């Protein structure tokens, strides 16, 4: 792998470049799913290739190949340079990069049990036991369970002299029960939608999730939702569980702070951001108890955004994003850092594989725990509590959002008084975060994995991490999804 990365770098560097880097990757994945008592998708895959990024003629070029023969690498190197040259046809100014150090490092994410050491039949055994427990509940029409394992080794070499060898292992697992009755479909997922929880861990995550112990409760909730009252429409205090709050952070804080969006790079696809440069240090993003960080360091936890170095060789860092409610930081790259006066990148460039270019991506964007107990968070006179995402949508500048959840409860004085189906809420990002009234403490904080974040053209799908505790928000618009 190291030889591959170095030879690819040599192949392009000797052609004369301002800067170049090469990433050689070897990816192994396993996917195991079950559905209604049978194996669903059982697959194993491996992929190996190299991506060569070059800065020449003041422009970027990038070429990737899985033809790892000397001729294949030479061809990719030549193509990367040809592509960079073509960019001069529409160049406004030469690309410049913030300085960075040279690093030689080897790093692997910690794990206890190598997921690939567990046989597939054992994976299926766990999932089929969950499946059986789900279908034991009368009214469950579809039971689905899944596990996903990934090992990704990347060697990064750059003309700065860096040579960084990183291996990341991640695990995901979860299940869902779906109930169809009389023209209505209800669903409950555990521990989260999108296939459950994902973290940078080994197979120990599967054991920690206690899937089987939660199956009956979750299945019963899916069925019970048919008889629940429709979530009312109006303004209510809103309490979110930590998984839904994780997605709220992702959509309404994580994406808006991507500096490439702010500067227009994604205008044609993912969109831009309401966080224009003049807002930095000035905007009251949230209430005073709202503190958000972007933290790729292992100290933050085993998130899908945890690494030692980003994909342009910048060390993992922690950046304050919102401090005491005030907006104080973007996610940056070596190319964009100068736009906000940073002397160096804060290390957020990530690519979803060897065949794609690194982009500014969320690492772990987390709401820091509050000082309230869970009882204090729940203790509103009258509130709606919502759990587990069902639908999510936000405009292309990240102002207006609407989320639907799988289940809700009407709360009075901290107690659940009735179950609600089809709950949803909506609002404007800064109004929502400024309405944050209570955040539960660290013992209720979970670092959630979002495995399916899309961005870029060609689109890249990235895993991101979001830590959150349950929190309460004042006077939020509820029920808009079914309005009208």
């Amino acid at each position, binding site marked *: 792998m190291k030889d591959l990365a170095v030879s690819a770098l040599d192949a392009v560097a000797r052609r004369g470049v301002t800067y170049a880097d090469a990433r050689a990757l070897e990816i192994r994945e396993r996917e195991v799913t079950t559905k209604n008592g049978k*194996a669903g998708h059982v697959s194993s895959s491996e992929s190996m290739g190299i991506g060569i990024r070059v800065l020449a003629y003041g422009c*970027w070029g990038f070429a990737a190949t899985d033809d790892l023969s000397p001729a294949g690498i030479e061809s990719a190197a030549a193509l990367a340079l*040809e592509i960079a040259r073509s960019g001069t046809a529409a160049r406004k100014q030469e690309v410049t990069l913030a300085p960075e150090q040279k690093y030689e490092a080897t790093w692997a994410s910690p794990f206890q049990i190598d997921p690939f050491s567990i046989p597939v*039949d054992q994976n299926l055994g766990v999932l089929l036991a969950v499946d059986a427990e789900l279908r034991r509940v009368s009214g469950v029409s579809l039971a689905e369970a899944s596990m996903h394992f990934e090992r990704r080794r990347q060697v990064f070499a750059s003309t700065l002299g860096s040579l960084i060898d990183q291996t990341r292992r991640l695990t995901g697992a979860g299940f869902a029960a779906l109930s169809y009755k009389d023209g209505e*479909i209800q669903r409950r997922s555990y521990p989260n939608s999108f296939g459950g929880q994902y973290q940078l861990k080994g197979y120990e995550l599967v054991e920690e999730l206690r899937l089987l112990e939660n199956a009956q409760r979750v299945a019963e909730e899916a069925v019970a939702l048919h008889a629940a009252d429709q979530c009312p429409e109006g303004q209510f205090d809103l309490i979110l569980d930590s998984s839904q709050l994780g997605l709220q952070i992702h959509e309404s804080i994580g994406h808006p702070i991507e500096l490439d969006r702010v500067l*227009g790079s994604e205008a044609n*696809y993912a969109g831009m951001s309401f966080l224009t440069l003049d807002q930095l240090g000035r905007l009251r993003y949230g209430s005073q108890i709202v503190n958000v960080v972007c933290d790729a360091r292992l100290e933050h936890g085993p998130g899908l955004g945890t690494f030692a170095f980003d994909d342009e060789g910048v060390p993992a860092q922690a950046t304050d994003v919102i401090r005491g409610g005030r907006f104080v930081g973007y996610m940056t790259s070596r190319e964009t850092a100068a736009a906000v006066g940073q002397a160096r990148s804060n290390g957020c460039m990530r690519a979803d594989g060897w065949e794609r270019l690194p982009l500014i991506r969320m690492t772990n964007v987390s709401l820091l725990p509050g000082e309230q107990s869970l009882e204090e968070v729940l203790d509103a006179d009258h509130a709606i509590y919502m759990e587990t995402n069902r639908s999510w*949508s936000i405009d292309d500048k990240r102002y207006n959002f609407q989320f639907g959840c799988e289940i809700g409860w009407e709360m009075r004085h901290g107690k659940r008084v009735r179950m609600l189906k089809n709950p949803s809420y909506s609002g404007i990002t800064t109004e929502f975060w400024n309405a944050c009234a209570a955040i539960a403490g660290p013992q209720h904080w979970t670092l959630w994995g979002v495995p399916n974040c899309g961005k870029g053209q*060609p689109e890249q799908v990235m895993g991101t991490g979001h830590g959150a505790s349950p929190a309460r928000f004042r006077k939020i618009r509820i029920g808009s999804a079914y309005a009208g």
Partner: protein
Amino acid sequence: MRDNAETAEAIFGQVLDAARTLGVTEIEAIVASADEALTRFANNAIHQNVAERTTHLSVRPVIDGRTARASTNRLSRDAIREVVAEAIAIAKLTEPDADLPPLAAPADYQGVERWFESTARATPEERARAVAEAIRAVATAGQTAAGIYSTGESVFSLLNSRGVLARHRETMARFSITAMAADSSGWAKASACNRAALSPLELALTAARKAAESSAPRELPPGRYTVILEPAAVLDLTGQMFPDFSATAIRDGRSFLRDRIGKRIFGENITIHDDASHPLQSGAPFDGEGVPRKRLTLVERGVVREVAYSRQAAALAGTAPTGHGFPLPNEFGEAPTNIVMAGGGTSLDEMVASTDRGILVTRLWYIREVDPYEKICTGMTRDGTFLIEDGRVTAGVRNFRFNQGLIEMLSNVEALSVPVRASGEETYDMVAPAMKVREFNFTETTRF
């Protein structure tokens, strides 16, 4: 391209040998290669400019009712032996499934010609020149351009030990552009197997015109409006329902068509086919098991007529497969992916002229399902939303959030245009008309 017919057959020969050595005779292989490039621009300059060459091999044995898939992009003799051994090993660790069909038998496929030399051989310079011309057109209007121009070719071969040899090669070009003015934006996009069918300059001029005409947007109250959805908006919104035209989804209880087959659920002016051979369509004439794709009448004059069946779903239902199955093993079964919506004879201009008060929508964004059985979807308008008054476009408007049931929407269609190949961002490209729809449900507005 490393893959050609001979390469795929040679690889499959090695797959067969490796499987037989391990005592397995039933095996399927997919050999897929792609050579794709994309020139991306923003702020009136090319900023991301990429190319990728990929080949992968995926194999699936069938052993006494068991199956699993293993994939690799290493194509040495040893690597092919290893991937076959891996697939066999994990397949043997699954329980037998009495419903698992044997491998598909050979069939005849309808020929489709979707590969064009000039698209396959497009150079970075050619894309860059077209992008530069498009940027100039937008910049001349005092606006800022962002977008992509991609070109590429792909080859997909599916072979199995029963003699299936299905091969499809295709080229594809896409041009998409957003023009941004001080407080407004416009967008246009097109795709075609032959890049000669695209005009980046025309698309740029369209985007620039929309940006100019939607400047100083007015904020209107949310509510029920007559809307005119351009084809890309029709595509991205109606595209949310086609995965439900699946026998497996219906059996699983996750389709809105459960208990609705044979019923009139849309207006009589709605007719929808799935037709892989349509001249404006793209993709292979066979499915993920090598079954020829049949033309389906999904909706006829508002009545749901047919849904897709994979081989397994067809066997369970006692009917014939339609050629819409995904590669096995999978939990979703099948879905139609070559949608062709019938249109009408009303042009977009005529729709506007016949509207007293309404909203013209260029594009929709971030569409997600809110209610799976009533098929309510939410999302935003984007990049060119206009007020129509007294038969003409009078102003740009701030973008709306909608929460709209698709059954209701397709029951409220007042006019349709001639369908075109439409390209958006939320679903497969399809052949779709513009639509004039009454009582479209906008529930909120945003700040721009």
